[in-house]
């Protein structure tokens, strides 16, 4: 039986009939096969039009219907509805667009008529192959997602909550409210924005149906209308919601200043902050990036950024306490550390690194260690023996003592301190600094025994018998390496450097000679040289075989030595000692040249033949290196010694081959820095603690090994940082220095220290100084919080993500960013707002950038970035009105003497009460000048322009040019789409239009719908609009969402893919092509099968399928070929 097709062509008034000869088309179609009825009518979409179709279906037993009229995107559903009502399956319908595609775009009536005939015939041919299809009915989840907590988002959420449905409101910032809450007053009623906004915010916060997720972002949405699965990332505030009372003590204590985003950068906030006092939720938040590079560079992990910030605030005791969490010897390191942190300091990108070590020393010098309290300690029963009281030993002793273990220090020398005491001279590290710090540590209850040497006075076994459950070895590297120079042992007057320094430091040193020669280029050599000078030696010479660049000693030490009169011979290698009568008289050396690099990477010194010469001297001090004295280990015991003469220990746990013996410091690494010894000590104490608690250290070591490297997401170095030279500490003059062992470096003055600390850029933002934790009475601060991912289902989504104000910097002619009194509208709102940077007073900035006096004249420039081909062609809609508002408010607040100049192109006062407000402002005396200004400059040409901003332009009504000096310029900057709108759009499945705002389904009839069913738009994210329109749109979007949610079900299109199992060969290529993973493979049948719930009908599978097994229903190949045939046959018959 052949089909019975009914054809209808619409006049659409004159829209179609004006160009297309509709009766002719109907006549043409009447002649085609299977066409039973062919009519034309004025308005097919009207009731009579639709009734016509319904009547014909019944009367003529039509089983196919074709309508040629407007776009199917407009009325396909209308006519499908008519078919359905007449009992015909709606998918037996096809539409041809002869309005948008023909009559409206084709000028010539003949051409238009031919095109209409072709498209109509194609539709008729295609409809023969249509199949009966039934819409799928799916449940709609009752919950709704609203994205964006501005006025539109809040209104939509409240409306939905009122209906009894549950709504998730996701807001990216720490508070809801959006831009509206940044305003002061709103036009035209001059309601205070906070007064009308905060009650809505509070309602949202308190409504039991609204789940408020602030400081959160929607990351992913999957599913389809009625059945969306939402993934939200909740960023960590580090402050507990519900516990924080919003008292603000934390912000008072926080040392880190940041430009405030809420205040548009006009003033500062702290790293812990709340946007404004009426924020909902009231909870504070901490801005935290990855740990600053200085903290990461410190081997011991000292919180450098933290203590530098505390010093800036003058909180020296807090700074020292923070340092001591990772470093028990702050005063020592503040003098001797080689500061690897300073090498990583990002201030280097601006000028010089922050003087971190000097700042540490300064803070320590302000604190009286004798008055520092000792915390209460919970005693444990285990006890640990620590051998060696150098930095590693002291660190382990302190760490374990704090944990409650019984700790005994065994020190071979008569005084505690290790190399700190007997290696580093007093002019670098004064005795009393070391004493007071060691005393403080001992006051924690550490038992210390001096003159107890391991091997000589006791053994490790003895310690075991005495009940020590663990032993920590840190005997350092106190043995000098032999110089292996001929004659070394033959003459008196050759001292070893370590012994020499030790004797001097223990108070039993003697002047080695009158003319002393030191061999070596390390810190020990330089220390020996400078000490010799202070002991009264007339001539002190250092001999080093490479150049100054390769000397391992610290540059400041080398400089110090030279300024004190020490002679340094570079490229000079030792040959032999020269002596007479058993005493040293000289030292033979030879010159060297630098050759190829050796294993250490330094260039090898090559002796120059025949360059020998003798330096006269009476004492020689070789200082070419140290090694640990491991004679105690010779008696067995199980410790493994490496080929460099150091003890082997696990690099993560410091455990030796004896499970209860741990070792760290120079005895494991060879001579290294103090801070490395401290860092190693921490590793050891952590491991010892776990060992004593019975933990498996192998697992612990593996955990440490697999730890991922730290992140490097730091605050970018601001582009507007002013260069500031690094402060220098004061030093004792070179003449005064060598007279005694007084400390050479005298440190900072307080003013210099605070200024230096102010140079820190706060790379990690929050410095984790924990001041906020200390002052928070509610105990709401939690620095361990992590980001959280929430997943939940919703049925519908409303996007209300708002707008951004354009940055007018690219428009150099207006001087924004150049002249400090040129403001954007949003900045001016903050100045006006009582919670803003000026407390609501309208003031201008003086030459120091401070808000001081009120303006006497203000220029307001309209259309900055709007109605502009170079930026945005659209009109931002609200600017004319807020410009009027500003003029009115300025005169109100500052005085009626203030001159206001509005530079406009057109005045757009379209809304309710707007034109009346405009009239009122005119009557109040605001001056309106038509014509967009050309330029704002500060170059004065006359005396009355001095110190002012001059607006230059043409008054287009008068046809005259002007120069107007004013105190303040406000730019009505364009409202533009959010920077990341396109990216966000992809998450929701919605597009952006050419203007950057989200694309609605239809600009006239569908401003709230989007291309994706179930996703609606509300507010400024769709286009620039004012508050009343945003609120109205929000309620509209809520109604649309509720329409679906309350019905609980929705019909979805059945035009999805189907794979014919008889044709499918099982190649499975379609499976990989499907963007929704909607195709599965049936192993038993060997064919691919479409999952109807997931398929959206895109046709990626059908477009590829080599056998044609996969076809999208209602778009299958028979239908497309038929449509194509219809076109080509008709063109062949009547021409194009």
């Amino acid at each position, binding site marked *: 039986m052949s089909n019975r097709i009914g054809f209808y062509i619409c006049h659409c008034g004159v829209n179609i009939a004006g160009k297309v000869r509709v009766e002719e088309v109907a006549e043409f179609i009447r002649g085609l096969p299977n066409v039973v009825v062919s009519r034309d009518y004025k308005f097919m979409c009207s009731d009579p039009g639709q009734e016509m179709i319904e009547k014909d279906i019944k009367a003529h037993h039509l089983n196919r219907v074709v309508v040629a009229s407007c776009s199917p995107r407009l009325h396909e559903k209308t006519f499908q509805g008519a078919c359905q009502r007449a009992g015909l399956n709606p998918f037996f319908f096809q539409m041809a667009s002869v309005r948008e595609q023909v009559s409206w775009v084709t000028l010539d009536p003949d051409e238009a008529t031919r095109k209409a005939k072709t498209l109509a015939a194609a539709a008729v041919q295609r409809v023969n192959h249509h199949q009966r299809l039934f819409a799928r009915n799916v449940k709609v989840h009752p919950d709704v997602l609203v994205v964006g907590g501005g006025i539109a988002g809040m209104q939509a959420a409240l409306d939905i909550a009122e209906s009894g449905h549950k709504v998730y409101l996701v807001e990216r910032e720490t508070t809801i409210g959006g831009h509206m809450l940044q305003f002061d007053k709103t036009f035209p009623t001059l309601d205070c924005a906070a007064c009308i906004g905060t009650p809505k915010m509070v309602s949202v916060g308190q409504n039991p149906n609204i789940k408020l997720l602030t400081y959160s972002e929607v990351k992913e949405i999957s599913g389809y209308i009625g059945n969306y699965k939402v993934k939200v990332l909740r960023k960590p505030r580090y402050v507990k919601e519900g516990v924080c009372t919003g008292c603000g003590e934390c912000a008072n204590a926080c040392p880190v200043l940041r430009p405030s985003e809420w205040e548009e950068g006009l003033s500062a906030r702290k790293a812990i902050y709340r946007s404004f006092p009426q924020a909902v939720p009231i909870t504070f938040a901490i801005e935290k990036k990855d740990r600053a590079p200085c903290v990461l560079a410190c081997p011991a992990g000292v919180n450098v950024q933290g203590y530098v910030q505390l010093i800036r605030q003058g909180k020296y005791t807090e700074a020292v306490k923070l340092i001591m969490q990772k470093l028990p010897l702050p005063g020592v390191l503040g003098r001797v550390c080689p500061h690897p942190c300073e090498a990583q300091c990002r201030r280097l990108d601006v000028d010089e690194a922050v003087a971190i070590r000097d700042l540490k020393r300064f803070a320590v010098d302000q604190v009286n260690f004798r008055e520092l309290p000792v915390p209460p300690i919970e005693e444990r029963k285990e006890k640990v023996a620590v051998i060696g009281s150098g930095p590693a030993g002291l660190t382990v002793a302190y760490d374990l003592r704090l944990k409650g273990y019984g700790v005994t220090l065994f020190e071979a020398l008569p005084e505690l301190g290790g190399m700190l005491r007997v290696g580093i001279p007093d002019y670098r590290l004064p005795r009393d600094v070391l004493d007071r710090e060691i005393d403080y540590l001992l006051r924690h209850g550490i038992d210390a025994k001096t003159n107890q040497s391991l091997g000589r006075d006791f053994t490790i076994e003895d310690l075991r018998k005495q009940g020590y459950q663990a032993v920590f070895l840190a005997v350092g590297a106190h043995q000098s390496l032999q110089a292996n120079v001929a004659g070394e042992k033959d003459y008196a007057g050759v001292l070893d450097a370590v012994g020499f320094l030790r004797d001097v430091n223990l108070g039993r040193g003697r002047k080695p000679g009158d003319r002393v020669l030191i061999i070596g280029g390390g810190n020990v050599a330089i220390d020996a040289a400078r000490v010799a000078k202070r002991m009264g030696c007339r001539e002190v010479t250092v001999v080093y075989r490479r150049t100054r660049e390769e000397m391992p000693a610290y540059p400041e030490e080398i400089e110090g030595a030279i300024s004190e009169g020490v002679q340094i011979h570079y490229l000079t290698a030792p040959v032999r000692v020269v002596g007479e009568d058993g005493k040293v008289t000289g030292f033979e050396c030879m010159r060297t040249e630098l050759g190829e690099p050796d294993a250490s990477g330094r260039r090898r010194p090559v002796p120059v033949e025949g360059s020998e010469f003798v330096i006269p001297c009476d004492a020689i001090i070789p200082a070419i290196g140290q090694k640990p004295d491991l004679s105690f280990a010779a008696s067995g015991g199980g410790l493994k010694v490496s080929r460099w003469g150091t003890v082997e220990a696990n690099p993560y746990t410091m455990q030796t081959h004896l499970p209860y013996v741990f070792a760290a410091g120079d005895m494991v690494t060879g001579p290294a820095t103090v801070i490395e010894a401290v860092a190693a000590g921490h590793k050891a104490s952590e491991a010892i603690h776990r060992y004593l608690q019975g933990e498996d250290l192998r697992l612990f070591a593996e955990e440490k090994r697999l730890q991922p490297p730290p992140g490097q997401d730091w605050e970018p170095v601001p582009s507007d940082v002013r260069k500031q030279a690094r402060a220098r500490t004061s030093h004792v003059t070179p003449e005064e220095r060598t007279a005694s062992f007084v400390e050479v470096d005298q440190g900072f003055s307080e003013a210099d220290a605070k200024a230096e600390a102010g140079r820190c850029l706060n790379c990690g933002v929050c410095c984790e100084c924990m001041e906020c934790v200390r002052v928070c009475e509610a105990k709401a601060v939690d620095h361990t919080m992590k980001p959280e991912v929430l997943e939940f289902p919703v049925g519908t989504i409303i996007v209300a993500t708002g707008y951004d104000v354009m940055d007018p910097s690219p428009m150099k002619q207006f001087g924004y960013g150049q002249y400090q009194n040129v403001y954007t509208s949003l900045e001016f709102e903050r100045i006006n707002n009582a919670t803003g940077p000026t407390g609501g007073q309208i003031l201008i900035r003086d030459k120091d950038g401070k808000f001081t006096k009120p303006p006497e004249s203000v220029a307001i420039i309209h259309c900055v970035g709007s109605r502009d081909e170079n930026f945005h062609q659209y009109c931002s809609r609200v600017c004319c009105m807020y410009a009027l508002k500003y003029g009115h408010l300025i005169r109100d607040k500052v005085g009626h003497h203030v001159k206001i100049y509005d530079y406009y192109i057109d005045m757009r006062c379209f809304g309710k009460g707007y034109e009346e407000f405009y009239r009122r402002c005119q009557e109040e005396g605001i001056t309106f000048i038509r014509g967009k200004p050309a330029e704002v400059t500060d170059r004065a040409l006359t005396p009355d322009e001095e110190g002012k901003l001059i607006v230059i332009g043409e008054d287009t009504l008068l046809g005259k040019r002007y120069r107007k000096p004013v105190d303040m310029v406000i730019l009505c900057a364009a409202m533009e789409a959010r920077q990341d709108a396109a990216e966000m759009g992809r998450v929701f499945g919605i597009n952006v239009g050419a203007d950057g705002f989200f694309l609605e389904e239809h600009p006239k009839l569908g401003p709230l719908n989007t291309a994706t069913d179930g996703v609606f738009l509300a507010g400024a994210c769709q286009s620039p609009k004012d508050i009343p329109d945003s609120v109205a749109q929000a309620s509209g979007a809520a109604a649309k969402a509720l329409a679906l949610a309350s019905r609980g079900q929705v019909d979805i299109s059945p035009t999805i893919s189907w794979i014919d199992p008889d044709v499918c060969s099982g190649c499975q290529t379609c499976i990989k092509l499907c*963007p929704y993973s909607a195709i599965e493979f049936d192993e038993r049948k060997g064919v691919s099968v479409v999952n109807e719930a997931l398929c959206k009908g895109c046709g990626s599978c059908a477009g590829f399928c080599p056998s044609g097994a996969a076809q999208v229903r209602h778009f299958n190949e028979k239908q497309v070929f038929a449509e194509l045939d219809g076109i080509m046959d008709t*063109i062949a018959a009547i021409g194009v």
Partner: protein
Amino acid sequence: MSDFEPTIIAFVCNWCTYTAADLAGTSRLAYPKNVRLIRMMCTGMVDPKYIIKALLEGADGLLVSGCHPGDCHYVNGNLKARRRIKLLKEILPRFGFDERRVKLTWIGASEGVDFAKTIKEMVAEIKALGPNDVKQQMVL
């Protein structure tokens, strides 16, 4: 031939280019009469055999147009179309078709002006190429 009026068949995606064509219509932008649109849900749905059939039937120009890469309503259907059309254009010359007759463009839903412009340009280009003489070739 100066009076040669090409026939151009355009397979366009429902969400972007078809909407742009509608916008061109509502904006009353005039463009040449030569194009006939066939509405697809996505350019990814366009099977190369539709294009080949059209050429065999004597179509002078073929346009496939969809959403901009990254904006496909179905995630990446347009990217699949890009691969298929590229491959098709490589094969067409072997069957005696000038591959310049087949064109792939991206026209977004708000780009009505671009749609009209694309049609105008394509008509001019196809006119320059001359008529598709496949029917004569087949007879021979």
